């Protein structure tokens, strides 16, 4: 093992890392708003609506993410006969798109339960004060409730986000050339564990940055208790 080899491993993993970051970024982008919607559905007064969302959450949390990814990828073809090979959204092929869909659907379920806990922990007095002051339902939600809920759920959200960084490696089942897939291929080609160690460093540094960012965010909301 020499420096050139290490540099070449790092470079190749770096290319896979772009996909890792992509999966991470898009999953966060879609799963958080989706999680908020699912949380609302789960808390719906209508028992049928609430039951539907609660079953959704139960299935998403109760089955392996890897299996869900395979279903999203192969499901359209095997169940509906829809060929997905030619689907492309911008620069992304269906492997990548399916990965993001699978991750988003799965993580939204976890986020939904975190948000539900946060929303239900809000004292009723906050709603009542907003109501008598004349705030609309939307204003109450976005100005009064949500900002406080975000502060309350942030530590749990950080947990999920850190798990997501590591979970991106599951995309290998759809042969997305994210970092872990690349590391595995390199390791078997070079008969060396070095690619795994470098990949580990990548994941760790990524998560250290995530942790730093989330801590900053938490601090920025610590002006009140």
């Amino acid at each position, binding site marked *: 093992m020499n420096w050139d080899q290490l540099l070449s491993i790092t470079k190749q993993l770096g290319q896979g890392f772009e996909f890792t970051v992509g999966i991470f970024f898009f999953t966060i982008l879609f799963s958080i708003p989706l999680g908020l919607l699912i949380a609302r559905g789960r808390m719906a007064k209508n028992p049928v609506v609430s039951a539907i969302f609660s079953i959704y959450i139960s299935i998403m949390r109760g089955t392996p993410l890897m299996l869900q990814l395979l279903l999203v990828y192969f499901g359209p073809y095997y169940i509906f006969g829809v060929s997905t090979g030619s689907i492309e959204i911008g620069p992304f092929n269906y492997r990548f798109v399916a990965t993001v869909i699978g991750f988003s659907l799965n993580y939204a379920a976890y986020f939904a339960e975190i948000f539900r806990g946060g929303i239900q922990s809000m*004292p009723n*007095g*906050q709603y*009542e*004060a*907003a*109501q*008598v*002051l*004349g*705030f609309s339902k939307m*204003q109450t939600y976005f*100005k*009064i409730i949500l*900002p*406080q809920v975000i*502060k309350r759920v942030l530590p749990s959200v950080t947990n999920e986000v850190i798990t997501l960084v590591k979970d991106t490696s599951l995309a290998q089942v759809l042969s997305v050339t994210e970092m872990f897939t690349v590391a595995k291929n390199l390791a078997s080609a070079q008969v060396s564990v070095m690619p795994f160690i470098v990949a580990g460093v990548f994941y760790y540094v990524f998560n250290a940055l995530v942790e730093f960012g989330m801590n900053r965010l938490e601090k920025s*909301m610590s*002006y*009140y*208790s």
Partner: protein
Amino acid sequence: MSVLEITDIHKSFGDLQVLNGITLHVDEGEVVAIIGPSGGGKSTLLRCATTLEQINSGSIRIGGIELDYKNKKSLAEIRNKFGLVFQNFNLFPHFSVRRNITEALISVHGKSKEEANAICDSLLDKMDLTAKGDAYPCNLSGGQQQRVSIARALATSPEILFFDEPTSALDPELTIGVLNVIKELAREKMTMVIVTHEMSFARDVADRIIFMNGGVIVEEGPAAELINNPKQERTRAFLSGYSD
């Protein structure tokens, strides 16, 4: 003219009848204190009057507007007519004192930031909180927080102000500042309905006292008279528990 007209309202929670035909009219500039044992319906009456609970029958008018739960516009109008001060303040913890007071002015009443700030400054002055505009509720004492919540309720110039046991969550030495503020408002002829356990305060500040028990008004009369010479046996029994 009556600012508040509550006529024969009934309210039950399931099988529990909490308000059993309450009629209460409050005139402009009048201060009415509501006293009585816990569970007697005082707070429920206040919550019904402030739209936080729906009545089963009867009618409520505030500032000439009839309460109609199905009519969203009239609900919004009626909420403009009153202010409510909660026992637990219910300030918005993530807003500064200033924003607690100005937010409704700006985003509900369409006032400009400058107008809202001017109103806020004069209210902070009045509440003896001049330097506290940029503080957050968690940095204030309970008494200060309650004065902020009074300022918040006053900001939109309501025609009537409701207080739900405004000093019950405060340490005794912190109640004085809050009670003084309410006395000052009474001197300015603010129309107020105050649910309270502070008998001497009720006697001093109120024009009229209502004694409630079992979901009905047992006795009402001029403040000093009701406290000093209660006519009903139940009122006497209740007041004898407060020997100040």
